[in-house]
C-alpha cells in the first residue's frame, strides 16, 4: 500500500465517518419528526442555529435542525454515573462493542456506483488441466477504443485497469485530464469495496453485536438489564438464520458475495425483488428484528423492562448504544437496497449506460442514498403502525414461520435455477414459487390453533375457542 492509497483510504474513512454520524444524528431527528407527524404533533422545532449569520441564521428554529447537535453536546456534558456493583470491565466494554461492530460492518457496503470492472484477461483456470483455459483467452479488454471508453465510464479512476490496459495494448492512449494522469488516483464509494466476501463479512460482524448486548445486560447487575439481554440474544440469533437464508438464492444467481457484483447484476437484468419477493420479505422482517425496531423491540421495550439492556447506562455510554443501533439501521438498509432494490439503478432512468463522470456518480450516489433514506423512513412508519409482539409470538415467527418459508424458498428456487424446466421463461417460476410458498405456509399456519395458553402448562395442546366479548361481558350487563 503506497502513500497515495493510504491517503485515499483515510479520506474515504473520514467521509464515511462524517456521513454516518451525521445521518445518525439527523436520523434521530427524522424519527422524532415522523413520530410527531404520525401522532399529529409538531415535534422538535425550537433548537435551530441562532448565530446571527447570513447563511446559518436562516435556519433559526427551522424544523429543529439544531437538535442533534444539542443532543450531542448534552451527551458529553451530562453526568455519567456508574452503579456500584457493576462488572467494571464489561460495563465499559459493552457500549464500545455495540458501536464498533455496527460501524465496522459498514466497511464493505458500497454507497455509490463502484462498478465491477471487466477482467482485462480472463484467466479462469480450467481445473481439469490446471492451467488457464484457452477457451476464455479471447476475452481481452480493451481491444478497441470503444471498449476502453466503456471501462473508463464504468470506473474511470481505477489505476490498475489503466495500467493493465497499457500493458495489453501499448497503442491505446490513456485518458488525461488537464495533463494529469487519471490512472494514479481512485474514487471509491466504500471503504473496502473490492472485497469478495462482502455480504458474509457484514453478517459476521453484525452478529458480533450480540456480545455488546449480552455484556451490557450481564455486567449491569440489574434485573431489567439481564432480562433485556436474554431476550435480545435469543431474538438476534433467531433472526439471523432467516436473514442468511433469504439471500442464499441471490448469491446463487449472481455467483458472488460481492455487493457491487450483486448491484451490477441487477443493473443488467432486473431487481431481485422481482425474482425473489419472498426473499426480500424475509430479509426485511429479519432486519427489523436485528435492529431491535418495533414490532420487534422486545429487548428494550420500555413498558415492561424500563430500558432493557441499557437500563443502567447514562450519557455517552447510552449514546453509544443509540449510535450503534442507528448505524446498524443504515447498514442493513443499504444492504436491502443493494440486494433487492437495485442499488444505484433505476430502470430506464439511471442505468448502466448513464453518463459517466461526475454527473453519473453524483446521480448514482443520490439514488442509492435516497433509496436508503426511504427504507429508513419505512422503518419509522412501521414503528407507529404495528403493535409489539409477545415473546412467544416473536420466537414462533422466527423458527416456525420464517424458517419454513426460507427453506421452501431456497430449495424451490435452487431447483428451478438448476433444472430450468421452462428454458428461458423459467426465471418467472421464481416469483410464482415465492407466492405459492407464502400462501401455503400462511394457509397452514391459519389452520393451527392460536398461541399456546400460558396458564395451561400441560404438554397436551388445548384446542379451545376463546370466549367472545359477548360471552364474557354480555350476560352481566
Amino acid at each position, binding site marked *: *500500500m503506497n502513500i497515495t492509497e493510504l491517503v485515499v*483510504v483515510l479520506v474515504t*474513512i473520514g467521509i464515511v465517518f462524517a456521513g454516518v454520524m451525521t445521518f445518525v444524528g439527523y436520523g434521530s431527528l427524522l424519527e422524532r419528526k415522523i413520530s410527531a407527524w404520525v401522532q399529529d404533533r409538531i415535534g422538535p422545532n425550537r433548537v435551530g442555529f441562532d448565530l446571527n449569520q447570513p447563511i446559518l441564521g436562516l435556519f433559526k428554529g427551522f424544523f429543529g435542525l439544531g437538535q442533534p447537535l444539542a443532543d450531542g453536546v448534552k451527551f*458529553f*456534558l*451530562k*453526568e455519567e454515573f456508574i*452503579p456500584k*456493583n457493576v462488572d467494571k470491565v464489561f460495563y465499559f466494554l459493552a457500549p*464500545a462493542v455495540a*458501536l*464498533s461492530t455496527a460501524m*465496522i460492518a459498514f*466497511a464493505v457496503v458500497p454507497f455509490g456506483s463502484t462498478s*465491477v470492472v471487466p*477482467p482485462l484477461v480472463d*484467466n*479462469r483456470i*480450467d*481445473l481439469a488441466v490446471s492451467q488457464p483455459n484457452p477457451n476464455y483467452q479471447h476475452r481481452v479488454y480493451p481491444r478497441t477504443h470503444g471498449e476502453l471508453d466503456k471501462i473508463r465510464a464504468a470506473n474511470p479512476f481505477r489505476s490498475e485497469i489503466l495500467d493493465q490496459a497499457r500493458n495489453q495494448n501499448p497503442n491505446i492512449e490513456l485518458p488525461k485530464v488537464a495533463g494529469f494522469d487519471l490512472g494514479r488516483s481512485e474514487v471509491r464509494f466504500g*471503504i*473496502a469495496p*473490492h472485497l*469478495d466476501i462482502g455480504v*458474509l463479512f457484514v453478517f459476521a460482524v453484525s452478529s458480533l453485536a450480540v456480545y455488546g448486548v449480552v455484556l451490557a445486560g450481564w455486567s*449491569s447487575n*440489574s*434485573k*431489567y438489564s*439481564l432480562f433485556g439481554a436474554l431476550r435480545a*440474544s*435469543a431474538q438476534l*440469533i433467531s433472526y439471523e*438464520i432467516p436473514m*442468511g437464508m433469504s439471500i*442464499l438464492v441471490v*448469491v*446463487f444467481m*449472481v*455467483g*458472488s*458475495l*460481492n455487493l457491487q457484483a450483486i448491484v*451490477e*447484476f441487477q443493473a*443488467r*437484468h432486473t431487481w431481485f425483488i422481482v425474482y425473489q419477493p419472498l426473499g426480500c420479505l424475509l430479509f426485511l422482517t429479519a432486519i427489523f428484528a436485528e435492529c431491535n425496531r418495533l414490532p420487534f423491540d422486545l429487548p428494550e421495550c420500555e413498558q415492561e423492562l424500563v430500558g432493557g439492556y441499557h437500563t443502567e447506562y447514562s*450519557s*455517552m455510554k447510552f449514546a*453509544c448504544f443509540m449510535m450503534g443501533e442507528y448505524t446498524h439501521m443504515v447498514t442493513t438498509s443499504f444492504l436491502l437496497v443493494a440486494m433487492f432494490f437495485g442499488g444505484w439503478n433505476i430502470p430506464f432512468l439511471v442505468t448502466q449506460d448513464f453518463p459517466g463522470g461526475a454527473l453519473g456518480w453524483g446521480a448514482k450516489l443520490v439514488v442509492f442514498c435516497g433509496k436508503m433514506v426511504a427504507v429508513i423512513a419505512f422503518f419509522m412508519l412501521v414503528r407507529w403502525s404495528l403493535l409489539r409482539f409477545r415473546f412467544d409470538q416473536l*420466537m*414462533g415467527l422466527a*423458527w*416456525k414461520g420464517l*424458517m419454513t418459508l426460507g*427453506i421452501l424458498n431456497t430449495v424451490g428456487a435452487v431447483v428451478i435455477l*438448476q433444472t*430450468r424446466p421452462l428454458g428461458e421463461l423459467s426465471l418467472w417460476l421464481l416469483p410464482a414459487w415465492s407466492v405459492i410458498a407464502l400462501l401455503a405456509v400462511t394457509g397452514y399456519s391459519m389452520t393451527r390453533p392460536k398461541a*399456546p395458553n400460558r396458564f395451561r*402448562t400441560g404438554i397436551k395442546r388445548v384446542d379451545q375457542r376463546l370466549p367472545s366479548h359477548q360471552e364474557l361481558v354480555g350476560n352481566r350487563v
Partner: protein
Amino acid sequence: MFAMTLHEFDFKLADYYGLLLFVGVVIGFAVILLSLSQIINPLKTTKVKESPYESGMDPIGDARQKFDVKFYIIAILFLVFDIELLFLYPWAVAAGGDHPAIPGGFGDIVFIEVLLFFASLLVAYIYAYRKGVFRWR
C-alpha cells in the same frame, strides 16, 4: 440464460488494508468517545444513585438469577442451523452465476448432494419442531 457475469478471482491482500485501518479507526473512536465523556462530565454519586434501578424500590436479591433453559436450547439450535447455512454459501458462490467458477457449475451430482444436505437440515428442523422446542410456553 443471463448475459455476461464477471468474476474477479484475483485475491489481493491490499484490498483488506483499508478494512484493517477502518477497524483501528473505529475502535479508537469508540475508546476516545467513552473516555472523553468520562473526563469531561461531572460526577457526583450518592448512595441511592449507585444502587441498580428496580422501579424505585430497594433491590431484592442478586440480579444474576437462574434463567430458563429454553434460551440455551435456542442457542444450540442456532449453532446447528447457522453452520449448516454457512456451508451452503461457498457452494452458491462456486456453482452459481451464469459463468460459474467451475465450468458447468459442478454438475448434477454435486447439486443432488446439496439437496441431500438440505434434507439433513430439514430432518434436524422437523425433529426440533416435533420435540416442541419452538413452542415457547
